[in-house]
């Protein structure tokens, strides 16, 4: 369909495009296909469109209160207000690597302030656009700077957060999977995991979820982490931790950093990469506060690595957004706000745990066949129910419960009031196989 032509030049424009497009009705972008909607974010859209009053949003991983409302932490509100009132605050560009204080506090949060790697100055940290941004900058850096001649390959758990594969793929890395989730037990397939990781070539990147694995909620035990470290070192793999739920999993920031600290303290010293997000644990979702750290062998190397990270960042967005990082830095640095934050974080984690208890209780009360204890054993915001695609579709179609089709439910979207409803719905689709 030709657009309106109200001038000779406009007609010329249409002709020129037709000639260049090579078609008789050549609109400039007619070859561009509509991209499929993002599966996770698509759930929010379908929830919004649903008019049924019983609807439940168990899709995207954003914390909700018992009343189903988003929650801006008091520590964050106070930090934000303090920033707004600060006469010295301005809106100037941050350095390419971001807010230095935020970077320092972020790596201290992850590794512990006294960690040898930090004391030795061998951790290069850059502020990033939340977890996604940290992963992407890290992936681009690795694709460019892993030793030449070495294959650019990353091993990710099966399953993993969908965006992981896209991110590493975009950076030009080959993505392979290691076994992770055991559908029978709805727990960890540790033997399979070790076998697959053991087969990785030296220098392969090993993506590990620091805690509260997304989407399954299944985490290795401390002893299994130790075995994974030994395997990583034996096979000379590069661990890349994705830490999006520190403090959110157990309610304790240090406990949730155990895997990261174990690896960072390993002899070598162990080189590793860490992506941190403050989206969930500080509720800073939309402000995109995150950090990428690269633990190196020496201060000299860390300096060079940081300089190269900046070269990745500059042509992507020049320098990171200030608002979220400034808030996060304030919350971490101010003793009173820090304490308040820890309290609120524990509160959120405890509510999630309570929902697990409640759901489990409801499922058991309905005498559902099978072992549903995984609901209690899985950790963090998500539970991998093991429901089939058909069953998930039925949950949405019949029960107006919105979730991703892999059977992942966000526990944060539940309340004491809605647990019985969810349990009933699960019981129904389990009985019918989703065909009703």
């Amino acid at each position, binding site marked *: 369909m030709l657009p309106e032509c109200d001038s000779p030049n406009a007609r010329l424009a249409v002709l020129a495009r037709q000639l260049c497009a090579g078609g008789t009705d050549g609109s400039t972008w007619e070859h561009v*296909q509509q991209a499929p909607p993002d599966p996770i974010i698509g759930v929010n859209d379908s929830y919004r469109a649903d008019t049924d009053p019983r609807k439940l949003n168990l899709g995207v991983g*954003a914390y909700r209160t018992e009343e189903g409302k988003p929650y801006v932490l008091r520590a964050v509100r106070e930090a934000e207000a303090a920033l707004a009132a600060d006469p010295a605050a301005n809106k100037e560009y941050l*350095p390419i690597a971001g807010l230095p204080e935020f970077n320092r506090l972020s790596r201290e949060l992850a590794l512990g302030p006294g960690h040898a790697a930090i004391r030795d100055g061998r951790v290069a940290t850059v502020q990033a656009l939340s977890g996604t941004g940290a992963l992407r900058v890290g992936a681009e850096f690795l694709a460019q700077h*892993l030793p030449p001649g070495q294959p650019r390959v990353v091993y990710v758990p099966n399953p993993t957060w969908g965006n992981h594969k896209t991110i590493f793929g975009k950076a030009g890395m080959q993505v392979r999977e290691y076994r992770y989730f055991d559908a029978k037990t709805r727990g960890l397939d540790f033997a399979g995991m070790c076998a697959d990781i053991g087969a990785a070539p030296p220098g392969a990147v090993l993506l590990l979820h620091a805690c509260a694995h997304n989407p399954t909620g299944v985490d290795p035990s401390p002893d299994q982490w130790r075995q994974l470290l030994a395997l990583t070192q034996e096979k000379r793999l590069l661990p890349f931790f994705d830490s999006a739920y520190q403090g959110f999993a157990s309610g304790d920031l240090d406990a949730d950093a155990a895997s990261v600290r174990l690896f960072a303290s390993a002899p070598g010293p162990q080189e590793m990469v860490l992506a941190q997000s403050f989206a969930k644990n500080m509720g800073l979702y939309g402000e995109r506060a995150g950090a990428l750290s690269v633990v190196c062998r020496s201060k000299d190397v860390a300096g060079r690595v940081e300089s*190269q990270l900046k070269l990745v960042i*500059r042509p992507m967005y020049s320098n990171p957004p200030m608002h*979220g990082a400034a808030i996060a830095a304030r919350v971490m640095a101010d003793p009173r706000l820090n304490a308040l934050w820890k309290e609120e974080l524990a509160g959120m984690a405890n509510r999630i745990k309570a929902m697990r208890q409640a759901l489990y209780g409801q499922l058991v009360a309905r005498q559902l066949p099978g072992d549903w204890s995984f609901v209690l054993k899985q950790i963090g915001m998500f539970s991998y129910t093991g429901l089939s695609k058909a069953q998930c579709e039925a949950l949405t179609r019949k029960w107006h419960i919105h979730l991703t089709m892999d059977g992942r439910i966000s526990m944060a979207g539940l309340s004491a009031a809605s647990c019985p409803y969810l349990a009933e719905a699960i019981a129904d689709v389990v009985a019918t196989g989703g065909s009703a």
Partner: protein
Amino acid sequence: MALSTSAPALAGLRPVLNALPALTRALVQPASAAATTLFGNVEQAPKDPILGITEKFLADTNPIKMNLGVGAYRDDNGQPVVLDAVREAERRVAGSHFMEYLPIGGLRDFISESVKLAYSDDAAVLREGQVAAVQSLSGTGSCRLFADFQKRFMPGTKVFIPEPTWSNHFNIWRDAGVEFAKYRYYKPDTRGLDMDGFLEDIKRAPAGSVFLLHACAHNPTGVDPTPEQWRQLSRAMLERGHFPLFDMAYQGFASGDCDRDAASIRIFLGDGHRLGVSQSYAKNMGLYGQRVGCLSVVCDNKRDASAVESQLKAIARPMYSNPPLHGALLVTKILQDNDLKQLWFKEVKGMADRIISMRSLLRKRLEEAGSPLPWGHITDQIGMFAYSGMSPEMVDALAAQHHIYMTRNGRISMAGVNTKNVGRLAEAMHAVTSGKL
């Protein structure tokens, strides 16, 4: 461990000597460590030519130092400015208790206000739903989204970039994997536009190429085509079916009038071009560190606009998932409220006027200092930067001897000039040029 070029005898050995650190490291490291270290051989990257200047400036302890490098506005006291319109918007947004993820494409209201600002409130393409638009990470982020989009959906095309241009343009398209070519733009002997060269390069470029155009206040030269020249350029590009991508980082900041500064875009739009626009609010709203921008692509119809938008979102998702919220909230507040919008227009004109008056003052002081060189270009040029014509050596001398910092292409950020330091700047420029320009 950089090697200075002041030892001519060693100049030939320079590549070898510069490689010594890496070679030494390789020899000194025990074999096992060298075999297993993954980052050990990462090289030190060079400093960014623009942002690296600020680092040098900060390292200088002399109190009379001047930073004329990065294009960030300063008031007459050399202080950064938070606009009153922004402060008021901040007050209204405070305590909104909303920090949820934005959609991948960003804040809807922000996007609709932005495209109105660029294309005009009643642009037909907006009414007809022909514009694909997403919120982006300021100007850099907009350009990068487009560059990635070009790589995927305009395979084999190059991006044509003006000579000279903002240094980061090369990095952006390089990282997107798109080849670039340069088009003639600036004529050093006239210090004006090389219109003939420009038109010739438009003709010579393969049909359907992407042409990156600075909508107004060309960075670094400050030389803009006139409206009549824009019309000629538009026709020439139509004939070749080129895709115009406007980088608009200074709307309102150039002339003081937002509509006037967007005239180039509107001329092209009127001629029926299907074009793209990268908008930044870093300078004109002083929202530098908030990273607020918008990328829009004018399409033929709604279907195309929807498809293009969905693909831009697919590019954003593995880069940052969704754009930062705060800056977009501020911009939206300002543009949606008529009083705030008018206040902003006044403030951006105020900034532009101060720059224009600094240009006059600098030229006057240079002439008063007795410089015999022609300095008319200082006042002829428009926007934040004055392309002084000084050589890299002169720029180095300004830093070393006068503690005045600017990029080595002789680009002066006029925003850093004020009534208190313009005299010293003129004296210093006169001293280092002493008739050599």
